[in-house]
Every structure is written in C-alpha cells, then in structure tokens.
C-alpha cells in the first residue's frame, strides 16, 4: 500500500483537467481491508486524482490543518473513501472534519473556500443493500444515514452528491463483485474529472452507482 501518494504536488496539482479530485482515504487497518485498499490503489493510479491516506499520514491523529486546507483549496472534488463504521465514517474522518472545516475557511461569512466544490462519500458497508431501508435490518436508507455529511456539505456551500456505495462488502471479493465495483469507481472518478457527469441528475439519486452509465456523457 502506498501511503504517500503525490505528496509533493497534492496541494498544487497541475490544472490539466476540468476538475481535480481529492480522495481522503480512511481505513484504520488497511492490511485487513478487502475492498477499500483496492479502491484506494485504483484512485492513486487514476490521473488527476490525489489520494491522502489519513491514518497513514496522521497515525497519532495530529492533523495538520493548514496542509489539509491547502489541499481542499487545490481540488474541485472532495471524496471520502472509507468503510462504513457504525453508520458513519471511521474516527479520523470525523477528526478531520472537526479541524479542517474551520470557521472563516469552510463556513461563516468569510468562509467561502469550499463554495461550489463537489462532495460525496465512497463507502463500503458490511450489510446487504436490502437491509438499508425502512423495513430492513438497519431501518434507514444509506443516503439518510449520511445526512450529517450532506448537511455539512451544504453548510460549506458544496454541491452534495449521493454516496458511491458497495454493500455486502465482506463477500464482494468471493462473489466476484469487486472487479466491477472498482471499474465503476474509476469510471466515476474520470467522469467527474472530465466534467462528463450529469451533476444535477446525480444529486437526486439515492446512490451514485445505481444508474452510473446513464449519468455519464460520452465525448
């Protein structure tokens, strides 16, 4: 696992793409990851994408706020890449939000640094998709469960997209669903990067993966 991708340029990547993408990756135990680790690797290999391994960079949670804010400024798309832990993100992503989304930077009258940027969460859940609905085991849909993130994005003036999610993640590998998911993930990143994603349509969906092909324009 490469934990320090493009460190030298991640706060100032070249502007050769329509949008530059920042993937904030959070997995406390990457050695044991069966899905997220591969998504992270795929993102690293995708041009125009900066991947930050938060647990790798801040093993003691000592988040460098200035560095994180510079990264945010330098990208137009912000993605959280993480397993779903207790219907939310792993702890370091919460710490990251608490510190990086400062008043005067991310919100407040002066805080306009994130205005217009696109935000979404790419997550993997242990539970099956059917369980994530009102009648299901988990009682709430995945988009509903991410309401705090959605509202955070709104407060920061960002464009919120529904999650890109993989359910039953623990069996994805053996059931052969991993390959397609990774391919979809890369397609999604590239479409965002090249401004080929129908943003206004995507905003209304429950999840990004469901109708991915119909969201993407080919040029």
């Amino acid at each position, binding site marked *: 696992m490469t934990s320090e991708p493009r460190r030298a340029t991640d706060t100032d990547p070249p502007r050769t793409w329509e949008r530059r993408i920042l993937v904030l990756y959070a997995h*406390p*135990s*990457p050695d044991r990851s069966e899905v997220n680790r591969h998504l992270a690797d795929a993102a690293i290999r995708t041009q125009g994408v900066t991947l930050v391994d938060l647990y*790798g*960079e801040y*093993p003691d949670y000592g988040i460098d706020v200035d560095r994180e804010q510079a990264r945010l400024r330098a990208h137009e798309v912000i993605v959280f890449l993480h397993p779903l832990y207790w219907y939310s993100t792993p702890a370091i992503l919460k710490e990251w939000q608490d510190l990086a989304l400062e008043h005067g930077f991310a919100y407040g009258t002066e805080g306009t640094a994130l205005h217009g940027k696109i935000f979404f969460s790419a997550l993997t859940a242990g539970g*099956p998709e059917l369980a994530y609905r009102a009648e299901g085991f988990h009682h709430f849909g995945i988009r509903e469960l991410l309401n705090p993130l959605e509202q955070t994005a709104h407060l920061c003036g960002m464009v919120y997209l529904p999650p890109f999610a993989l359910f039953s993640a623990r069996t994805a590998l053996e059931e052969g669903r991993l390959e397609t998911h990774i391919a979809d993930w890369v397609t999604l990143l590239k479409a965002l990067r090249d401004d080929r994603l129908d943003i206004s349509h995507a905003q209304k969906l429950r999840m990004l993966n469901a109708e991915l092909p119909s969201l993407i324009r080919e040029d």
Partner: protein
Amino acid sequence: MDGMLFQLFVYLCAAVVAVPIAKRLGLGSVLGYLIAGIIIGPALGLVGDETSEIRHFAELGVVMMLFLIGLELDPSTLWQMRARLLGMGGLQVALSALLIAAAALILGADWRLALAVGLIFSLSSTAIVMQTLSEKGLAGTQGGRSSFSVLLFQDIALVPLLAVLPLLASPELMLINADALAHAPTAANAVAQVEEMSLVAGLPGWAHGLVVLGAIAAILFGGYFLSRPLLRFVAESRLREIFTATVLLLVVGIALLMTLVDLSPALGTFIAGVILANSEFRHELESDIEPFKGILLGLFFITVGAGIDVEILFGDFATVLGLTLGVILLKGCVLFGLARLFRLKTPDRWLFTLGLAQAGEFGFVLLNFSMANSVIATEDAKLLSLVVALSMLLTPALFVIYDKLIQPHRSRMEPAEADEIDEQGPVIIAGIGRFGQIVNRLLIASGVRTVVLDHEAAQIETQHRFGIKSFFGDATRPDLLHAAGIEDAQLLIVAIDDRDRAVQLVEYVKRRYPSVKVLARAFDMNHLYLLRKAGADVALREVFDASLRLGAEALKELGMHPFKVEKMARAFRRHDEAGLDQLYELWDEHPDVSRNRAIMARAREHRETLAQLMETDRLQLHDRTERGWTPPPTGAQE
C-alpha cells in the same frame, strides 16, 4: 581563648534555651533572643561590657538581612514601589521626627536636642520587624509590604541623618568635649575613631559628595560587571566553602566601603542585593548568607537584651517607661494616620501601626554618633539608649497583640485582596542537562513558570542567556530547594545526572513536602524502582521513549503502515509497562536485582510472552482497538 569560648558558650546556651521556649509560647524568636540577652546580662551578670562591641559586630547580621531582602527585589519591583517608598517612608520619618521633637520641647529640651532625638526615634527596627514579619508569614501582605517600604526609606534616610546630626551639636557640650579632649584624649576616643575610619572626614562638602557617589558607583559597577564573572570563576572551582567565603567577602567588603564613606552599610548591601537579584547565583547567595544572617541577627538581639543598663533602668524606671510608651504612642499615631491616608485595610493598618512603632537598632548607632558629636550628653544618651532598647523589647509584645486581637478577624474582615492572591506555585526543575532542557522548554512554551537549578555554572549561564530563570547550585541541598521555593512549588522535576542523589532528592522532598508532586527521570529499570520506592509520583526511563520511536521508525521504513506501527508501539508500551509493574511487586521486597531468583524468573517469563506474542502476531490482537476494527466474520450479519 578560654574567655572567648566561655562567652560563646554563654551566648549559645542562652539562645538554645530561650528561643525555642519563646517560640513554643507563641512569642516569636526575636523576643526569645531578647529575653535570653536579659537573662545572661542584667539578670545573671554572665556577660558584661563587651556586649556593645559584640553588638557592633552583630550588626553585620542586619547588613546581611538587607542584602537578602535586596536579593528578593529586582530593580523593576523596587521601581514599582517608589510611591509607597517615598510617600509613606518620607512622611513617616518627617512627621514622627517633628512630633517627637515637639514632645521633647514641651518636656523642656533645647530645640537642637529635641530635633536630634526626634530624628533618632523616627527610625524603626528593620531587624525586628522584618524578622518577625517573615517568621509570621506576613511579609507579603499589604501591611507587611508597606512596613518594608518605610523601613527601606529609613535605611536610606540614615545617610542624610548622619550628615545633619552634627549640625545640631549643642555649643555647651562642644565646650565640655573640647575640654575633655584637651585634658584626657581617651575620653574622646569615639570621635577619634570615627575620624580614623573615614575616607570623607574633613573633606569639603563637594568632595564628600563626590566620594560618596564614587562609592555607590563602585557598588553598581562591581555588582553588574564584576561580581558575576567572579562568582562563576569561583563556582567552577567546585569548592563550596570558597564560594561561601566569596559571598561573605562581598558583603563585608561593601559594608566596609559604606562605613568608610559614612553611608549605611545596610544600604550598600541592599543595593548589591538588588543588582544580584536577577543573577543566576541568587539562590546560592541566599542559602549561603542565610545561616550567617540568622546567627548574627540572633546575636544582635541578645546584645540588645544584655545591654540593658539595670542601674539606670531601675533608678529611673518611671522615666524610662514613660518615655518609651510616649515614643511608641506618638509613632503609632503617625503610622495609623499614614495607614489611613494610604488606604490600608483595617488589619493591615494595625499591623503597620503596631509593627513599626518602636525605635530601631540604628538608634544605638545614631545615639553613639550624636554623643561623639556633642549633640547629646553622655548621661542622656544612655537613658535614651535604654528607651530604644525597651521599645524594641516591647515590639514582640505588640505583635502578640496583633496576633491575638487583629489577625483572627483578618479573614472575616477582608475576604481576599486581589494583588495578594498567591501566584500559582512554580515548577522546579532540578538538573538542566539534555533531559531537563527539553522538559523545561515544553513547560515554558506552555506558559508554565519554572525555576531551574543546576550545579554546572556553564549550563546555568546558557539558560540565563536564553532568558530562562535559572540558578546555580546543588539541587539536593535543602537550603537551595528552600530558596527556590519548594514549599509552594507545585511540581519538582528531578533530572539530575547523579543516580543516587536523584533518589535521595526524591526521598527527601516527598518526606518533607508530601504535597509537592515529584516527577523523575530514571536511568534504567532498577533506578526507576528506586525512585518509585523513594516516592516519586512519576518516574520514566530516559531512553525508553526514544528507543520505541526509533523502533517504530524502523518499522515504517520497512513499509509497515504508519497507523499499524503506531498501534504496535502502543501495544508494546502497554505490555512493557505492565511487566514493569509486575516485577516491581517482587523487586520491592528484594531490591537486589541480580540476586533475586524470583524476579529473574518473572522477567524471563515476561520476555517469553512477548516473544510469543510477536511470533504469533498476537500483539495485534492484544491491542483492543485492533479487535474493534476487525469486522464480524463474513455471513454473521443476518
């Protein structure tokens, strides 16, 4: 020789017996010394005429006391108290002198004599008051600080007084003295002595002034530029007694210089003290001079008691007592008025009034001087000396009144005075080598007030240059710890490079000051246990953290994910510390590691479990958080 030993024996005996008893009875040490003096002098007649000589010598105690007071006051503090110093002090001296002079006039004295007596009695006793205030812990109160300002002004005022008093000479006395001088030169010994020992006698006014200014300039210059290199040089020799000798030389030298130019020696050493207040040697100076000061001051008080002339006292008891009470009353009125004027709170007002109402030790000096200068007749001077002595003798009684009647109301009458709220106690760092430095830097960066002690003058010098409050001296010495403020310290950090002394230091501080938390650096496991046993609240092995970090860096270099490394290091630390605690239980009973079978066995066991853990990768499972992040087995969820 025999005679001297006998004298010494008598004085010491008196002090050893009387002072602890007086203290036990709540009378304070000063009264104890005075009573001891009365017992060996007028009461038993064990000591005689030599007391006045001894007193002269013992006045060095007062001089040292002012040096110590100076050391506590850096120039900026002194500057802050200028209003109180000049206003209160000036008014006190002027008003008391006038009032007492007026009373003397009414009693039929000549105006010159009246004024001289007024001036002499306007001074109070620095020795008694400062000693008593600090003994009772009142020096920091508003009343205590005001008292100090006035006393300091009086010390300064001594200079012009010595110049003014000869102008008040009575023509008749001059005639008599001149006569006596002509007929029997010995009678005017005193005069001759003064002239002999002076650099300025007989000089015209302007030259006198120049010499005096030169002397003060010499003290300032020497204090700023010469004393520190000198002290550092001597300190480097690591000969403790020579350092002490140097300090004594400094004090005695200044006192001598001041005497030669007719200035108060106490004033000179006070100035020197203020100059050295910011130096790294402050605590060392303090702890070196302190015992001398204590003994000499005690001796001084004894001589005051012993010097009471019973014949005159009982021959004219009513007069002496009447005059004494009169002086105390008049001075008390002035003081009380001033206390009101300067808005002292009620209990402080009484402390100020009762504390400063006596006449002082400089009274003896000035009376002798006046006698020699034909200002006061010998008989009168003796009587007035008695008044001075008696008023000093009564002072502890006045303090007792304060203790019994005023002090108990203190807390009720005045909840807490803003500027008196105790500053948070300091953190004392013993040893400022590579280890202590880092601790100190972290604390200072976090806004914590630290006091640093080290016995390497060079280390202290470096710290000093960076503006860190640091003092030279052996941190294991109780007096130095005391001077550094161990009583109200919050923490003591022990980072000295001597294993055994570190343990002794911890042991001593925990025994004497159980409320001070002690954090200590340990060299290794055995040392850690010794420190723990000595009572250290926290003891850490010095290389453990760095080694662990370096190990962690190695793992990262090998490509392990940093967060995993972090978890491994944490788990390792926990395991290691747990083992340390387990072994301690065994060690405590058998402090000799090498011969302790049980401990060896346990250590081996512990190492084996660690090896096992490492082999089977169970260290990770050992880490509770890692278990938390392990997803449930596949398929377990519904």
